[in-house]
C-alpha cells in the first residue's frame, strides 16, 4: 500500500499552504483547502482500511518502508508506515472525527481574524497525529508525539493575547515535556534491549523473553513504566493531568478534536500498540490499571462540582481516559481502544455541543448562569442529550457497551479485579450525575442569565449542526460493534483487535448470568446518577446547597480540585522559580559571572587610570622615559 503516505502528507501540504499564503486568501478558500485535505485523507484512509479488510489474516500487518530515516552504526530507524487493525481503526477515527470538526470549525471560527492560522495549526495537528498512529517504529511515533504536543500548545494558546490562554499553553507544553522525557527514555531502553526500535522486531524479540510476574522489576517493566510516564503526560493521567483542564482556554473545536477525541488518546494507543511489551510486565500493568482507575474516580469527583461547561467536560475526559487505561491495565486492550473510539464520538459531540451553546449564548460558559436554552436551541439540546446518555452508559448507546466491556474485563482481572470494578462502577455513577447535572443546568428550567449578559440566544448555523448530527448517529450506533455475547451480540471489536494487540479474547471468563448481573449494576449506577441529578436540579433545587453546606470540607476540597495545582505550585513550581531567581539569577549570574567580568574590567581601568599619567604630552618627558629605559637596559647588561 504505497499510497499510505498521502494520508498524513495531504494535511501537511494544506497546513503549509494555509500558513504561508492563507493570510491573502479569502476565508472560503482557506476553509476549502483545510477541510478538503482532511476529507481527502479520510477517503484514502477508508480505502486503505477496506483494502486491508480483504487481505488474508496472515498478510497483516501491512508495513510499507519508504526510506531509511536515520542510520548510525548499529542503529537504524526507517521511515515506514504500519497498517493493521489497530492503526487502521485509529486513522479512521482521527480523520473521520477530524473531518467533522474541521467542518464545524468553519462555522465556529468564522469571525476570527486568525482564521487561516487556525486551519494551518489544525491541519498540522492532523499530520502529526496520523504520523503517530501510522508509524512503524517508536522513533517515528515520537516525531508524531512531539508534533501533536506542539500543535496542542499552539492551539491552546491560539488566543494568545489573553494571558490565561498563553499561560495554559505553556503549562500544557511544560507538563508534557515531563512525559515526553519518559517516552524518549523508553525508546532508548527499547533500542538498548532489543537492538531495534521497529515494532515488528521489538515485539518478536520481546515474545522470546520470559514474562516478568508481579513484584519482579526487569527491563521490560522499566520500559513499560517509562512509556506509561509518557502516556500520563499526553493522556492527562495522575500525576500529569493538570494541563488538560487549563487547555480549555483554546477554541472549543480544538478541545473537541485534540483534548477529547484524538491527541489525549495517544497514550492509550501507545499502550495498546505496545501490548506485546506490557503483557510481559505484570507489575507495569498493575500500575497502569491503578493509575487509570485512580484518575477515573479522582477526575470524576472533581467534575461533580465544576461550574464551567467546558471544564466539566475536561474533567470528564480525564476520567474517561482513566477508564481506557484501566482497561489496558487489566489486559483488555481491545476494550480500551473500543472505549477510545466511542469516547471520540460522544465526547467530540459533547464538546461541539458545548461549543454550539457558547457560540449561541455569546461566549457564556458558566452553567450557573445558563438554563432554559432548550427552547432557544432545540437541535443542540437533542444532540447534547444523545451525547449525555451515551457517556452516562445507558443502553443502548455507545458508552454503555464500551464502559461495560471495561468493567467486565476489570471484574475478571486476577489482580485486585473486584476493587477496580467497584471503582469503575462508582465512577460510572459520578459520570452519569455530573453529565445530567450539566445538561439540566444548561438546557432546562428557567433562564438565569440577564439580558445585559446575553443579547439574543440563537441556534447555530448548519455547518455546526450537521457535524453534530453525524457524531450523534455514531454515538448511538458505534456501541453495537462491541455488543457482548451475553446480549446476543458478537463483540466484533474484540476479535477484530485481538491480533493487533496480542490480546486473548476474554469472553470465556465467568458466565453470561454474572455478566448480565454486572451489566445491570452498571446501568443501575448510571440511572442512580441520573436520578440524583434530577432530584437535585429539577425536583428539589434547594438540596444541592444544603448538601454542600452539610459536607462543607468535602465540598471545598472538590471545589478546589483537591488543591493539586496549589500543591504543585508550592512543591515544584515555587522552589524552581525561587531557585532560578534568587540563586541562579541573583547569585550565580548577577554576582558571580557578572562580578568576574566586571571585576576584570574595573581592575584594568583602575590600573590604567594611574598609568596614563605617563602620557604627559611633554616631548622631554618622553625623552626622560627613554633615557630611563636605556639606563635600565645598560645596567641589566653591565651588572
Amino acid at each position, binding site marked *: 500500500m504505497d499510497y499510505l503516505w498521502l494520508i498524513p502528507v495531504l494535511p501537511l501540504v494544506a497546513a503549509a499552504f494555509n500558513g504561508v499564503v492563507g493570510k491573502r486568501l479569502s476565508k472560503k478558500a482557506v476553509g476549502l483547502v483545510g477541510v478538503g485535505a482532511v476529507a481527502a485523507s479520510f477517503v484514502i484512509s477508508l480505502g486503505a482500511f477496506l483494502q486491508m479488510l480483504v487481505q488474508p489474516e496472515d498478510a497483516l500487518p501491512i508495513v510499507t518502508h519508504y526510506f531509511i530515516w536515520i542510520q548510525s552504526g548499529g542503529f537504524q530507524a526507517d521511515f515506514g508506515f504500519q497498517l493493521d487493525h489497530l492503526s487502521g481503526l485509529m486513522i479512521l477515527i482521527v480523520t473521520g472525527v477530524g473531518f467533522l470538526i474541521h467542518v464545524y470549525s468553519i462555522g465556529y471560527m468564522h469571525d476570527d481574524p486568525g482564521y487561516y492560522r487556525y486551519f494551518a495549526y489544525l491541519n498540522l495537528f492532523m499530520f502529526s497525529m496520523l504520523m503517530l498512529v501510522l508509524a512503524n517504529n517508536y522513533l517515528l511515533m515520537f516525531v508524531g508525539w512531539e508534533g501533536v504536543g506542539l500543535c496542542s500548545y499552539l492551539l491552546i494558546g491560539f488566543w494568545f493575547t489573553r494571558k490565561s490562554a498563553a499561560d495554559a499553553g505553556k503549562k500544557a507544553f511544560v507538563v508534557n515535556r515531563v512525559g515526553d522525557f519518559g517516552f524518549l527514555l523508553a525508546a532508548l531502553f527499547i533500542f538498548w534491549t532489543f537492538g531495534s526500535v521497529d515494532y515488528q522486531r521489538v515485539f518478536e524479540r520481546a515474545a522470546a523473553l520470559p514474562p516478568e510476574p508481579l513484584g519482579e522489576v526487569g527491563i521490560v517493566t522499566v520500559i513499560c513504566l517509562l512509556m506509561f510516564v509518557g502516556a500520563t503526560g499526553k493522556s492527562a493521567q495522575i500525576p500529569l493531568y493538570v494541563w488538560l483542564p487549563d487547555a480549555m482556554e483554546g477554541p472549543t473545536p480544538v478541545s473537541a478534536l485534540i483534548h477529547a477525541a484524538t491527541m489525549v488518546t495517544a497514550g492509550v494507543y501507545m499502550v495498546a500498540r505496545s501490548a506485546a511489551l506490557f503483557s510481559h510486565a505484570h507489575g507495569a500493568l498493575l500500575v497502569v490499571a491503578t493509575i487509570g482507575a485512580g484518575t477515573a474516580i479522582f477526575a470524576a469527583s472533581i467534575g461533580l462540582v465544576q461550574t464551567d461547561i467546558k471544564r466539566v467536560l475536561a474533567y470528564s475526559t480525564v476520567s474517561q481516559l482513566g477508564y481506557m487505561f484501566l482497561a489496558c491495565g487489566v489486559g483488555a486492550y481491545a476494550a480500551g481502544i473500543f472505549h477510545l473510539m466511542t469516547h471520540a464520538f460522544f465526547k467530540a459531540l459533547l464538546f461541539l455541543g458545548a461549543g454550539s451553546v457558547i457560540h449561541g449564548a455569546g461566549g457564556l460558559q458558566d452553567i450557573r448562569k445558563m438554563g432554559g436554552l432548550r427552547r432557544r436551541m432545540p437541535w443542540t439540546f437533542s444532540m447534547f442529550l444523545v451525547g449525555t446518555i451515551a457517556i452516562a452508559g445507558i443502553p443502548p448507546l455507545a458508552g454503555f457497551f464500551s464502559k461495560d466491556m471495561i468493567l467486565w474485563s476489570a471484574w475478571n482481572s486476577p489482580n485486585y479485579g473486584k476493587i477496580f470494578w467497584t471503582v469503575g462502577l462508582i465512577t460510572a455513577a459520578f459520570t452519569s450525575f455530573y453529565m445530567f447535572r450539566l445538561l439540566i443546568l444548561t438546557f432546562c428550567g428557567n433562564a438565569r442569565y440577564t439580558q445585559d449578559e446575553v443579547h439574543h440566544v440563537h441556534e447555530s448555523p448548519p455547518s455546526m449542526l450537521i457535524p453534530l448530527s453525524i457524531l450523534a448517529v455514531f454515538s448511538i450506533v458505534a456501541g453495537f460493534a462491541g455488543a457482548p455475547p451475553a446480549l446476543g451480540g458478537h463483540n466484533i471489536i474484540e476479535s477484530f483487535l485481538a491480533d493487533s494487540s496480542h490480546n486473548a479474547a476474554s469472553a470465556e471468563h465467568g458466565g453470561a448470568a454474572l455478566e448480565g448481573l454486572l451489566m445491570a449494576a452498571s446501568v443501575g449506577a448510571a440511572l442512580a446518577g441520573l436520578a440524583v441529578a434530577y432530584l437535585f436540579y429539577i425536583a428539589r433545587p434547594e438540596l444541592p446547597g444544603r448538601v454542600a453546606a452539610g459536607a462543607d470540607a468535602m465540598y471545598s476540597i472538590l471545589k478546589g480540585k483537591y488543591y493539586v495545582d496549589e500543591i504543585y505550585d508550592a512543591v515544584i513550581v515555587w522552589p524552581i522559580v525561587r531557585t532560578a531567581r534568587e540563586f541562579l539569577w541573583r547569585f550565580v549570574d548577577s554576582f558571580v559571572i557578572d562580578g568576574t567580568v566586571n571585576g576584570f574590567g574595573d581592575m584594568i581601568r583602575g590600573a590604567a587610570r594611574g598609568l*596614563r*599619567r605617563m*602620557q*604627559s*604630552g*611633554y*616631548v*622631554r618627558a618622553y*625623552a*626622560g622615559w627613554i*633615557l630611563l629605559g636605556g639606563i635600565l637596559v645598560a645596567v641589566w647588561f653591565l651588572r
Partner: protein
Amino acid sequence: MIPLNWYLLLGASLFLIGVIGFFVKHNIIALLLSVEIMLSAVNLTFVAFSSQRGEISGQVFVFFVLVVAAAEAAVGLALVIAIFRNRESLNVDRSNLLRW
C-alpha cells in the same frame, strides 16, 4: 697613536652634552641640535672601534646613521616650521595637547 679610551671618553662626553642639552633647552631647534650631537657621538664611537679592531662594519653603520640623521633633520625642520606657523613659538613645552 692615540689610545682608544680617549676616543671613547670624547664620544661619551659629547653624548652626555647632547643629553643634557636635550633636557635643559626649551627651544625645539636646540633639541634637534642636541640629538645631532648625540648621533655624532655615537658615530665617533663606531669609527673608533672600527679603526681599533680593523673591521669595516663599524664604518658602514656610520653611513646608515648619517643617512638617518639627514632624513631626521629634514623631517624635524619641516615639523619645526609647521609648529611655528601654528603656535608662533618654538617652546616645546607649549606643544603638549597630545596626552591623556
